[in-house]
């Protein structure tokens, strides 16, 4: 297993606290943005961007992904690619139809 020293762990703990604060702030931002008068596409984009930032913080620091090995990284990258395919390609099929 990794040989993290006590100092390393204590540094990590400082990071966890900072990430927690950031997540709280971003949660407030998420809700606040929802009350702004924005068009639907912009609202969706903004909400997803903020969620992605929050998600990246959780993944990178709580889940230690920032320091993880390439096997994990590549598996997740491939998964993310297929996730995006699943999100967008069926949608594309509905936008390009023979009859409307």
């Amino acid at each position, binding site marked *: 297993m990794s040989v993290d020293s006590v100092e390393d762990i204590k540094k990590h703990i400082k990071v966890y606290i900072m990430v927690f604060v950031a997540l709280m702030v971003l949660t407030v931002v998420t809700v606040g943005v929802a009350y702004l008068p924005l068009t639907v596409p912009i609202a969706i984009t903004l909400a997803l961007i903020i969620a992605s930032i929050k998600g990246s913080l959780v993944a990178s620091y709580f889940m230690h992904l920032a320091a993880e090995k390439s096997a994990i990284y590549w598996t997740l990258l*491939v998964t993310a690619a297929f996730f995006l395919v699943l999100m967008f*390609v*069926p949608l594309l099929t509905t936008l390009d*139809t023979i009859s409307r």
Partner: protein
Amino acid sequence: MDNVTTAGHAEHEHELGFWQKYFFSQDHKVIGIQYTITALVFLLFGFLLMMIMRWQLAYPGQPIPVIGGLMGDANAPGGIMLPEFYNQLGAMHGTIMVFLGVVPLAVGGFGNFVVPLQIGAPDMAFPKLNMASYWVFLVGGLVMFASFFAPGGAANSGWTSYVPLSVIATQGQTWWLIGMTFLITSSLLGAINFIVTMVQLRAPGLTWMRLPFFVWTQLVTAFLLLLAFPPLEAAAFLQLMDRVAGTSFFLPSGLVVSGQALEVSGGGSALLWQHLFWFLAHPEVYVLILPAMGITAEIIACNTRKPLWGYRPMVYSVVFLGFMSFIVWAHHMFLTGMGTMISAFFQTTTMIISIPSVIILSALFISLYGASMRFTTPMLFALAFLPMFGIGGLTGLPLGLAAADIHLHDTLYVIGHFHYVVAPGTIFALFAGIYHWFPKATGRKMNEVLGKIHFWGSLVCMNGVFMPMMIQGLAGMNRRMYDGGIGYEHVQDVLHWNTMMSFSAWGLGLFQVFFIINFFMSIRRGEKTNDNPWEATTLEWETPSPPPHGNFLSPPEVHRGPYEYSVPGAATDFTPQGQRS
């Protein structure tokens, strides 16, 4: 401090009771055999369903002989099959063959038994999880089997369970969805186990490019199962809720059934099901073929006494194939009203995905050149796999071209295409694997005479069943018609093939009896062999037959590639992978 786990219970194996040793075993070899036997039973059952269907197709409206009375009045009053029953047989034949037969045998059976041995591991990475995977699979299988006895019978909306028909179908469909949930869960747990095993437990010296090709195919297959199955599980939940909770995920607004408007909220999308289903089901067909290619490769290398030609291109091809398989699914949906741009996208990816398949098949063909062939039963099946899969693959090309698919979609041509790939394709390779690895599992060989009768009879009958389907399909004969199409004028000229196809199917069934007898007889009375009767190079042959608990008497080390046959200057015509010097 205990920092290492022992292989389940290696030290006190002799203390295991009967149930823990043979039923609730955590040993990958026992689990592999459990999967194999269970899958073979389901394969036989699925085959029986088809044999009954083929009666109806050859002699529509005639009472089924001998067993007609056993079907029950709800299914076949007076022994004459009702359309509803035909539909049950069709849907369950497909479901059982794919999900309870072929995949559990190819992955659960062969994968479990062979992979840890071929990589020099003592067992799978998570033995308890392995055991759980088998039992969850069995529960799913029993749920599927039990569905025949539900009111209204088993699922009858095709193995594809298209909505909205499946949402309003009889109770058996709910059982199907529950059964699928168990099967998908079992697959996911298995896939995790396989990947961790192949990544982490390879013996020292067994680098990626020294892996037997069979292991590569299992690795890609595991990734396909891991990432493609979950959306179908999601879809199954959606359909379950539509059926039991009154939701309308798949029910469009204003749907009318038998003259009455459905009282649901509407707003659903029938195409949503197709997208989620085929997102899995396309990678699923590669799950069906990849292990078969792997088995064929192993047997060809061994029985030609020379290395595989093009190992590296084959590896790159199989990995590329895995990726591509996730972006071709809508070639099953060309006729759903998709526009030309998106259809062109899927047509292009589909054409591209044929390239790695061709590379692998060509490499296997070229591997035969200059061979010292040994025409044993496993080799005969492996050799036959090549042209049979070739026919299956080539007939897929017109289906992948959107314009041609307009004519061929949902015809017998499609059925002929995919059966060529799976039946004289994959299943032949699986038979080859059984004959090939039977000595490793039991210490005895199967009988060659019975094996050859099984082979030749099956080869002829397979072609007798499926080749005429191409003719019928090209004439435009639709699939899933319980009367075999007698009501349609445009197929009258090709109807006569039905009789010959049915007799071929029943003949095929008869020839499997030779296999069944051979299998069980050889367990007790087969010719005893040593550890390596085929004189093969891969690691599984460097351990006793059958291997002991923990597999290897001393930890193996790998010193060379997997197919060092006929090495110039070597003393014997094969050099085992783990041999020191």
